[in-house]
């Protein structure tokens, strides 16, 4: 198991990770736009709409930056 993990880490190209990141980020943006459309048009409470939007955006930005950090450190660790 240890050998397999070490092999996978060695064989992984950081460029592939950036591509995956771009795909995930792109998909998140599209879904966020759909959410925004729904929340803005069908909201029943403006405060709720704003606070939900803020929490959602904060969480998403945090997770996307976590992905970027992981790629950067992974690339540095491999060199």
């Amino acid at each position: 198991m240890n050998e397999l993990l070490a092999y996978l880490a060695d064989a992984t190209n950081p460029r592939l990770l950036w591509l995956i990141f771009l795909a995930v980020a792109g998909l998140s943006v599209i879904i966020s736009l759909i959410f925004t459309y729904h929340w803005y048009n069908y909201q029943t409470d403006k405060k709720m709409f704003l606070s939900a939007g803020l929490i959602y955006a904060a969480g998403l930005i945090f997770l996307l930056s976590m992905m970027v950090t992981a790629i950067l450190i992974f690339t540095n660790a491999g060199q």
Partner: protein
Amino acid sequence: MPANKLKTYHGEKIFFQVRKHWFIMLVEGLFLSALALLPLIAIFILQTQMSLTISPQVFWLGGFFYASWLILMWLLFWLAWTDNYLDVWLVTDQRIIGIEQKGIFNREVSSLRFDRIQDITVSVEGFLPTLLSFGDIHVQTAGATVEIIFKNAARPYVAKESINRLHGRALSRQDKSPAE
């Protein structure tokens, strides 16, 4: 307010809203949290059972995929929230406007005038629904076999009483008005 997109009659007043109980969202949230923690639990078990040694490179590669997994869970959570939050019954002085959001690309809006209501039934089944006061409200219309249902509504008995009161008021108003 959905009323800004929803066409209400002239002078129509929205009295109250019927929403889903918070417990439904809590259960979905807990389920997704458990799914979010699943990879960590799997790694912990592997580490203890198979004496896994994790190099910094493997750690950050795992971190990358775990973050992607968390994003998926985050999006699913907000999808569930949207589904729950946008399911609502708006009870006005003339009718019930039932809005049901099914996923993100399926939305159903139905309208039921008070003079067409024949029967309102509330069903609260099970220990937790009884304890936390949530259940289904069925509104049956006269004539046709049309029924609108609000599943897992919060405080269904209060909603039923209020709808009954508004229904009675609408009927007496109809009786007083001259025959057309």
